[in-house]
């Protein structure tokens, strides 16, 4: 620690904000890992959607377009000094909240039972809850990056404000309802709070509160029946193999049947027969498991691991609390989605509708993930200025 941490009231360190940093200072390994995931994802989406239309490439093209836009957004994010970003954070937060409010009004559209989309026409749609994740990361980092005087723990008031800010977004997402995204937001909140140096007894108190809240939710019938059923099916998939256990069983069949080397790209019979639902989005990992086998599936997991570890490294190397917290929160976000998404296809997590970062089809998720990578790079490049 050389005292150059951007703490409240102190001028920013060595380099003025807004000055561009050289591209070669970016984290190359992170770029390689994300590019690798995007490439694999593209192949998997192609494979799983090639029978949808006559030429078989319409979804592929859309995905490539999404990736292109996402890359542009990532580059744009990387060029913005993250300390500047901090200044815009309240705006980002307000925009995300507005988007979430908009989506539950008639402006939003319902897909698969969740009112989560704003249709843009031409087959494109926006999913504000994806941006909400990003907004939450920023607002939490902003609020919790200001430690109390003579301490490196956040101030009690800031924690309270952070909890309220998180609760607002989570509540709005819950209204859609989107249980999975709510959980992601919860994990981001918990992760950022813990990283920010919250006292252990506060953590314990919050954990108790969450547990109590969870119990209340379970017993007060707040959950939709399908959510309860999914959980039951996770605990015991044999309950109803044709119904709620179906997805889990079919996902395992697809992944397991890939064995060590997989059946080759386009060679997956389970994929071709579309036994697993949503196999270009939430269940895209089953295609990896079936067609690329254990080697391919592990590659995806390892690449995601590389992204997470690079993110943690960036967090560690960052010399200001805001940057560290942003990077750490992004790792929590992407890590949790990886755990849930991969875990549900191999029977270690309940079925939850969350995309696999950088791999699943989905415009907004791709954009949000790519911006997150861009932000990570921005943090990294500023800290490489020595």
């Amino acid at each position, binding site marked *: 620690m050389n005292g150059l941490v951007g703490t409240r009231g102190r001028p920013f360190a060595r380099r003025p904000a807004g000055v561009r940093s050289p591209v070669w200072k970016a984290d190359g390994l992170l770029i390689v890992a994300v590019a690798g995931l995007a490439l694999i994802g593209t192949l998997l989406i192609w494979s799983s959607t090639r029978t949808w239309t006559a030429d078989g490439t319409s979804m592929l093209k859309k995905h490539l377009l999404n990736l292109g836009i996402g890359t542009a957004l990532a580059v744009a994010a990387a060029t913005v000094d993250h300390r500047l970003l901090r200044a815009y954070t309240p705006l980002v937060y307000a925009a995300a909240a507005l988007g979430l409010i908009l989506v539950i009004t008639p402006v939003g559209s319902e897909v698969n039972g969740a009112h989560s989309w704003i249709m843009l026409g031409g087959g494109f749609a926006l999913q504000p809850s994806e941006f909400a994740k990003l907004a939450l990361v920023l607002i939490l980092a902003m609020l919790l990056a200001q430690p109390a005087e003579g301490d490196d723990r956040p101030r009690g008031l800031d924690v309270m404000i952070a909890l309220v800010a998180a609760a607002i977004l989570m509540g709005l997402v819950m209204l859609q309802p989107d249980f999975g995204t709510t959980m992601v937001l919860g994990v981001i909140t918990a992760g950022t709070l813990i990283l920010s140096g919250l006292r252990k007894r506060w953590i314990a108190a919050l954990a108790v509160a969450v547990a109590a809240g969870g119990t209340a939710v379970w017993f007060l019938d707040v959950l939709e029946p399908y959510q309860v059923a999914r959980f039951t099916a996770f605990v015991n998939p044999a309950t109803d193999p044709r119904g709620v256990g179906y997805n889990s069983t079919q996902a395992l069949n697809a992944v397991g049947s890939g*064995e060590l080397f997989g059946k080759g790209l386009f060679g997956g019979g389970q994929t071709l*027969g579309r*036994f697993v639902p949503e196999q270009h989005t939430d269940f895209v990992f089953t295609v990896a498991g079936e067609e690329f086998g254990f080697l391919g*599936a592990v590659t995806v997991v390892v690449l995601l691991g590389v992204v997470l570890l690079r993110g943690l490294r960036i967090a560690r190397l960052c010399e200001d609390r805001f940057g560290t917290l942003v990077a750490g929160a992004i790792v929590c976000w992407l890590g949790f989605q990886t755990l849930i998404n991969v875990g549900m296809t191999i029977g270690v997590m309940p079925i939850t509708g969350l995309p696999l970062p950088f791999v699943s089809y989905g415009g907004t998720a791709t954009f949000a993930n790519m911006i997150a990578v861009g932000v990570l790079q921005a943090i990294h490049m500023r800290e490489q200025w020595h």
Partner: protein
Amino acid sequence: MIRLRGRLRVLRALTLALILLLGARLWQVQVREGERYVAAAAATRTRDVVVPAVRGQILDAMGRPLVRNRTTLVVSVDRGALERMKDGGKSVMARLGKVLGRDPDDLLRQIRPCGPTISRPCWTGSPHQPAPVAGDVTARQALQILERQEDFPGITAREQAVREHPGKSAAVQALGYLQPVTQEELEKREGLKAEFSGIDVAGRDGLESVYDRELRGTPGRKRVQVDRLGKVLGVEHETASRPGDTLITSIDAKVQAVTEKALAEAMKSAPQADGAAGVVLDARTGRVMAIASAPTYDPEVWTGGIDEADYRRLLSEKAGLPLVSRAIKGEFAPGSTFKMSSVTAMLRAGYPINGRYDCPGSFMVGGRSFNNFRGRALGVMSLHTALVKSCDTIFYRAAFEQYTKDGGRHPRGRPKEVMANTARAFGFGSPTGIDLPGESPGRIPDRAWKKKMWAATKDQNCRRAKIGYPEVAKTDPGRASFLKALARDNCQEGDQLRPGDAANFSIGQGDVLVTPLQLAAAYAALVTDGRLRSPRVGWMLVRPDGTKVKEIKVPVRGKLPLAPYERAYIKRALSQVASDGTAAGAFLGFPMKKVPIGGKTGTAEVYGKADTSWFASFAPVHDPRLVVVVMVSQGGMGSQTAAPAVRKIYEGIYGLAPKGEKPAPAALPGGVPASRPPVILPDGTVAKKIVPERGRVR
């Protein structure tokens, strides 16, 4: 920041743990247990589809098809798809009814699965298999359904092989019909661990049922790849089906047609007739050349799922039970046609063959007078004349004498029962063993049968003997008092063979029952070599390319208890019946010189009904090749209904006609049955000329 760094380290550890956890679990799922999931995936991804084997044809003795296959457009309904609809598919079925011009409720009845409480019309196949509701739909109707699948979800129209009977209703009861196989039937089929598909069919009656295993062939198996919705994506592998064997029968389609026509005309000529049967046997071999039962029905009703009205009609008493083959299932008193058995019994009991026997107008048996036909006394005569003129009293006397010798009502020791045992030796009282299902055994009312019958009916009879038949008395007091007396008799002494029972039995009356086929088989044995054969319809099974699989032999059941000269004596007597005897009227003008015909008329009384008319015949008398038996239930006298029908059959076979009429071409020129089955060439056609067997000089 130190605390923050510390917590980052924890997060790093968690991340590493996450990668390890997922990696380990993937190893477990994909590598260690991979095979299990490969199998599970294959099971969900593929479906085994049964490729039905082409069912073997059934040919006649000349190689003409009796049953062949043709393709038809069949409309099927997937019940599962209907059930998933909000209205249970009612609107779809209403639309389908409109296209097919049928009542939608009727269609719905056809597709409900059969069960203990649901009888036909219903679907006997698997509930997961589309049930056929209409066969032979037009291409236009099929297109209407296929082109507007959004209006007809779950409804398909596709080509399917179905049975076709070129002879329409000819021999339909003997040929049988097909129905979807049931789960139990499929499980019974050995070596075939097929999944129940519901498209397999099974023969349900007649030859289709008896030779089902051979005709069926072996279905092929196709493993197709399907998607989540069951749509077929491609074929993974396929094993070809093996078509069924062709069954060559000894039936001659033309003789069959002649027989059917004669029966139909006989039914028309006798106003009360409610059923008829005709059997033509190759006398020497015991092979069946024609087997007919009237009324009959068009087997097309089975194609594409039978509808309710048709099925009701097939089972209705009013329509004359057209499903039942009266030739093998109809049990009737044989009347005088039975006398050849009684003469044989007399010979075995020691009555001299050259003896002279008095034929009075009536004979007292057990205090009751048993009369000749119309009570006429015919004087002293030989057994020969007794058969020709159909004297009854000679047989009454012989039967009564034997009955008394056995000990009458209370026999000491083991009675000989020569009359009953001789009848058994002629094959009566037990099924002939023909290769057709559901044959009736007939009935020999001997002492043992009486006892058994009495034990079963005693309570009912004794009750009726007391209370009478008040419900019958309201409309028919005469019948009621008769029934009451009968019940009293049966209650008190029903276990005893009464003298009257013995007398009646000797002339084929009373409780004795035979089937037309039994009578034909007995006559065939009598007029040829004395061997009683178990008739066969099937002759040979060949592969579709003509390779012989096996010949179906005609088993010999036994030997008649007659020496050759005795057989010749009886045959000689019977040979005179058509020219000088009871059937002379029916054969007036028939060219007996050309085709000499022998036989015996029978007129069996049935209480409350018109007489059963019989004629059992053979031709030519010197060296019989054919045995023809016709029975007309409620047809009146044998000489009036059955004998003219038999005459028509012979006229058809030999190509003869009554004077002044133009004869049709002979159905069987010369009246000589085919000596060997037709030769099927490798291309499936029938060889024109009969190829002599190797080493045989013709």
